[in-house]
């Protein structure tokens, strides 16, 4: 199809040209116009013509070469029209000189493809073999002889005889005679008539227009280009004139190459002028990056390379804990690769530079030992309990509370197994075992030596018991004191809290509480013993005193008292708290602790002052007891001296509890500790 289109385009152009030639005689202006027109058409079709030019040439040669004379064979074929014009003359000449000039047909014949050409000389002028007897060589190198030419007369006679002779032509190139077929003859005849060579080609086919003019958004158009496209713009030319005038007047200046200032110059020429202080904040230079150590070397000592096991262990670590840099070893410099994190590292550094808050910090470059405070020698602060001297064994449960008698000969201990035991201090002998039946919470001796009475708190009750110690006189007084005739008539306000009873088994009084009103039962019982001792048995008085005491205590140290234990020592007070802190309060000074000692990692169970020596102790659930030297001077300007002296160990933990109670010996610098492991220990100096 395409072929055909092209050929039709050629046809069109050729027709136009013919027209042009015909109109040559007419007047000139018109001719010019037409020329223009034709040029424009030519322009339009230039593409097609140029593309089909070769083809056209080929066709032309195919069609007409046979009709040309041998002299004209060198001529260029310019256009079809030219050939057509000349066609008639050539034909006549051809007819007369038929023997030559037929090779074109031979060449164009399709049979050429089937039979290999006899000619072996290639593209060589035949003249070279004009006088030779052979023409070229065959494959074995032998000369190919020319065919014997008949003389003119013989050939003429043969032509006359042969009816087909008019169809025969001589192919000089291949040196043979060729007989044209009927089709070929017909083709030639058609050409001679000026028709298309092939019969099936319709020269005057209906024009099929491929442009669409209707029903399209953007219809294609083959309208000729408007004139304005070929005429230079009027406005442009005006603008140009304007520019020219402006340039002449010097209004427009062209870009002169700017004189480049030197980009860099001596910035710090004289430093003197910069000395003036800028009024902005002090610049804190960024800390310099850490300098690399031996392990970062490309070839570090072998000991810097982690072993395979260590590498494996890194894999098990959390990602944050893993070492940032794992040393590697390369045996030569050439094997060192590029560092893969180079860009990342410098990016992180940049982020640090502009995002990290900078603070000037003093670098402490001292021996850590110098930070420790200077303490007076412990030898000067002797005596104090140092080592375990005795162990009192007998309890079956954790020993909760101990209390020493005022003289220091005896002490009592209460345990969770429901017994109270009275021991002799020096020998370790258990004097009495009092079965209470309930877990003991607290035990307290009467501080007065002449009334050896023991107060025990167990469950909801407080028992005041006769220990059976002392001489007869004392025993008698005790018996008097501990005698309750009848259950007292319940008073209006007191009955709800306490009822006084004679203990049924043991020798003593039982105070039955109906409500647990006071949380630190120990204080209650202590005070009660005191009160008992003074003989103040009147109910209302007792009540008032108790409440008053409780309230003062609660008001001043409310928060701490609820957590710990409070022994008083003049104006100074120690509080041990559940978080393992030991606070020393100077009540004259302030309500804030004078000193806080963080010594125990676990709860402090009890703290104790020594009555005569400047010692105090704390015991805790971590199975240790600390002994401190706590000297309070009579001179108020001098701060109390607190020196930790000793850590006493030996108890073992049971059920998460360690040392439950500690008490000093009233006379000697000895310390009793009651452990949850049911052992009581005595530490001596």
């Amino acid at each position, binding site marked *: 199809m395409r072929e055909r289109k092209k050929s039709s385009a050629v046809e069109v152009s050729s027709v136009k040209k013919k027209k042009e030639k015909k109109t040559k005689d007419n007047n000139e202006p018109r001719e010019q116009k037409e020329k223009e027109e034709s040029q424009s058409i030519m322009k339009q079709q230039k593409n097609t013509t140029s593309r089909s030019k070769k083809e056209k040439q080929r066709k032309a040669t195919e069609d007409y070469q046979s009709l040309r004379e041998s002299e004209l064979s060198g001529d260029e074929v310019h256009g079809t029209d030219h050939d057509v014009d000349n066609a008639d003359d050539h034909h006549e000449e051809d007819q007369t000189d038929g023997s030559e000039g037929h090779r074109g047909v031979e060449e164009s014949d399709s049979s050429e493809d089937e039979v290999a050409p006899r000619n072996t000389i290639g593209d060589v002028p035949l003249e070279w073999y004009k006088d030779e007897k052979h023409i070229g060589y065959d494959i074995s190198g032998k000369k190919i002889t020319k065919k014997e030419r008949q003389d003119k007369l013989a050939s003429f006679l043969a032509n006359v005889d042969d009816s087909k002779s008019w169809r025969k032509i001589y192919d000089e190139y291949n040196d043979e005679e060729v007989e044209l077929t009927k089709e070929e003859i017909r083709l030639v005849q058609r050409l001679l008539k000026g028709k298309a060579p092939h019969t099936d080609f319709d020269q005057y086919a209906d024009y099929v227009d491929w442009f669409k003019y209707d029903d399209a958004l953007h219809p294609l158009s083959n309208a000729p280009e408007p004139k304005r496209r070929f005429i230079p713009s009027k406005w442009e030319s005006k603008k140009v004139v304007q520019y020219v005038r402006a340039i002449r007047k010097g209004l427009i200046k062209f870009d002169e190459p700017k004189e480049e200032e030197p980009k*860099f110059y*001596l*910035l*710090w020429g004289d430093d003197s002028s*910069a000395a003036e202080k800028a009024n*902005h*904040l002090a610049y*804190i*230079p*960024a800390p*310099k*990056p850490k*300098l*690399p*150590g*031996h392990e*970062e*070397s490309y*070839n*570090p*000592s*072998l*000991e*810097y390379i982690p*072993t395979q096991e260590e590498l494996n262990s890194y894999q098990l670590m959390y990602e944050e804990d893993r070492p940032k840099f794992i*040393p590697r070893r*390369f*045996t*030569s*410099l*050439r094997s*060192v690769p590029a*560092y893969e994190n*180079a*860009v990342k*590292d*410098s*990016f992180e*550094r*940049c*982020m640090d530079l*502009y*995002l990290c*808050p*900078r*603070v000037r910090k003093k670098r*402490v470059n001292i021996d*850590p030992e110098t*930070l*420790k*405070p200077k303490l007076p020698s*412990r030898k000067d602060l002797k005596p104090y309990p140092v*080592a375990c001297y005795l162990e009192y064994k007998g309890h079956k449960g954790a020993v909760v509370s101990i209390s020493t008698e005022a003289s220091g000969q005896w002490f009592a201990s209460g345990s969770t197994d429901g017994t109270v035991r009275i021991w002799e201090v020096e020998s370790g002998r258990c004097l009495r075992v009092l079965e209470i039946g309930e877990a003991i919470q607290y035990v307290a001796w009467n501080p007065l030596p002449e009334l050896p009475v023991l107060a025990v708190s167990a469950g909801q009750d407080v028992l005041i018991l006769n220990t059976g110690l002392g001489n007869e006189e004392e025993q008698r007084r005790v018996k008097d004191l501990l005698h309750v005739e009848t259950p007292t008539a319940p008073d209006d306000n007191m009955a709800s809290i306490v009822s006084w009873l004679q203990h049924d088994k043991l020798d003593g009084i039982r105070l039955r509480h109906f409500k647990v009103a006071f949380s630190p039962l120990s204080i209650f019982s202590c005070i009660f013993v005191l009160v008992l001792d003074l003989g103040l048995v009147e109910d209302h008085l007792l009540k008032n005193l108790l409440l008053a005491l409780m309230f003062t205590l609660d008001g001043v140290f409310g928060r701490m008292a609820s957590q710990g234990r409070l022994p008083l020592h003049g104006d100074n007070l120690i509080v041990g708290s559940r978080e393992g802190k030991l606070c020393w309060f100077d009540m004259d000074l302030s309500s804030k602790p004078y000193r806080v*000692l*963080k010594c125990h990692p676990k709860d402090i169970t009890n703290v104790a002052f020594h009555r005569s020596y400047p010692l105090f102790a704390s015991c805790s659930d971590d199975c240790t007891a600390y002994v401190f030297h706590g000297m309070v001077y009579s001179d108020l300007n001098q701060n109390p001296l607190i*020196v*930790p*002296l000793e*850590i006493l*160990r030996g108890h073992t933990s049971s059920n998460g509890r360690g040392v439950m109670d500690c008490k000093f010996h009233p006379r000697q610098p000895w310390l009793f500790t009651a452990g949850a492991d049911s052992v009581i220990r005595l530490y001596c100096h």
Partner: protein
Amino acid sequence: MPKHYRPAGKKKEGNAAKYITRSQALKQLQVNTKLFRKLCIYKGVFPREPKKKFRGNHQTYYHLKDVSFIRHDPILEDLRAKSAYRKKIIKAKAKRNKELADILKNRQPEIKLDRLVRERYPHFIDALRDLDDPLTLVHLFAALPGSDRLKIEVKRVHNCRKLSHEWQAYISRTHKLRKVFISVKGVYYQAEVEGQKITWLTPHGMQQVLPDDDVVYDVLLSFLEFYETLLAFVNFKLYHSINVKYPPILDPQLEASAAELYALARYFDANSRPSEKVEATQEEESELRLAQLQHQLPSNEPGALMQLVKDAADENEEDEDTKECKNLFKNMRFFLSREVPRESMLFVIPAFGGTVSWEGEGAPFSETDQSITHQIVDRPTQGHVYLSREYVQPQWVYDCVNTRIILPTEAYMVGRVPPPHLSPFVDNEEEGYVPDYAETIKRLKSAAKNEILPMPGMGKENLDDPQNLLAEGYISRAEAIEAAERKQKMMTLEKQYHDELKMELDGFKYSSSVSDATKQKSDEDMETGEEPLPDVQQISTADMSKLLMSRKKRGLYEAMKKGQERKKAHVDLLKQRKKKIEAAEKFKKN
């Protein structure tokens, strides 16, 4: 009433008045985060830590003065103008007005940072003090490939290359390089300029990877922009100080063959005469000034004069250090093989007074030159060997530089695994662990010092020392080897002697310490009488005084202790590993 209530009309006080959070700062400056980041980077503004973080711990706080400092800077207007201009270009492009877009592109306003450099570093010494990071970043970018996607322009990479070479050329020329360390991360250099120790890292000369995730290149490029300007001005000042014109004009041929450093050196040589002159004039000047000062000083103030003289002496001392560096490789000629990192070597060797050439175009002398004393080779075997020169691995050069002596080359021969490369930045005594090779080097150093102070009976040996031979002009290799062997023998002997001495010393110490301990014990025994558990006692005494420390001090103490323990653990680990390695070696031998 809430705690932070402030009655109307009352001004803010304390931290709230001094600091503002980052988002507040953004609002005040009316900039977006990107621009704020750029401003912070250019101006060197960093967050500060108020005593009390009134808006919570998660906020970043800036000092109000810092923010107003940014607000009053013309750079803010410039950057805004630039972004407006950028919008113009985008608009022109969107309208397909390519012509206008091109014109606009070519006339972009340039932002100059010189004023900021001067503002941030009012003195040259300040700039030098802060030069570590700029140098590292510029050297890194000099090795990066340009990338359109990440906006790393090739032009900038070239500029970075240029700047880094200029810097290296100055350092090398003035012999200010002090230490070199090849690490896995790259090569660390330390130079000393005007008393400031400047350390920088250059990546290995390989194709660098550009990670896509977790790196924001905008930040890096903003920093780089400032650093480039800073470094250019610093270079200018430095070149000015040695009277060389800046920027230097290089031989294009050498530049093309990637030997810029050598080209720069040539450039220096061309300009060397005037520099000497200047030195002379400077000296004259200083003398003149001294005289003037003397005039000004009242004659009865000898102290001030003494000070002046002392200063001069100090300067001389500094010079001695440079002199030492200058003469380390004096009269040595090096030749670099193809596989040796050329840039580093071209920088280091001339910095220590050596002459160097390489395989390639524009090299000052070729491999066949007979005067070459050392050829630096980094390949498994060397085919053709010249007898007149030593073949060493590149590490030899770096180790020599760090130790400041010419090390024996046996250990660094071609094909061998060189001895461990140690960091010159580590103080071994402080670290608590001394690697073996550090001790060897120490001995070699002391030996070298002994040579300088010839001892009786040692003089003859000294003559045969390879170094001296080198200095004299090298007689023959065999002789040198012999000498080296002799030297090693001597060294081993010496080492033995030293070890013995050490043993004796240790032994003495040990015995003395033991006796001390016993004495103490006996004292205690005498005083305390019967003390059953002295160990527990000691432990408790240590703990006892800790109890009385304040919380702050205790924290500090514990932190310090922890640090010490960590250090010790590290050293122990090293020792343990070493022991294992030694045991394994022994096992192998057996």
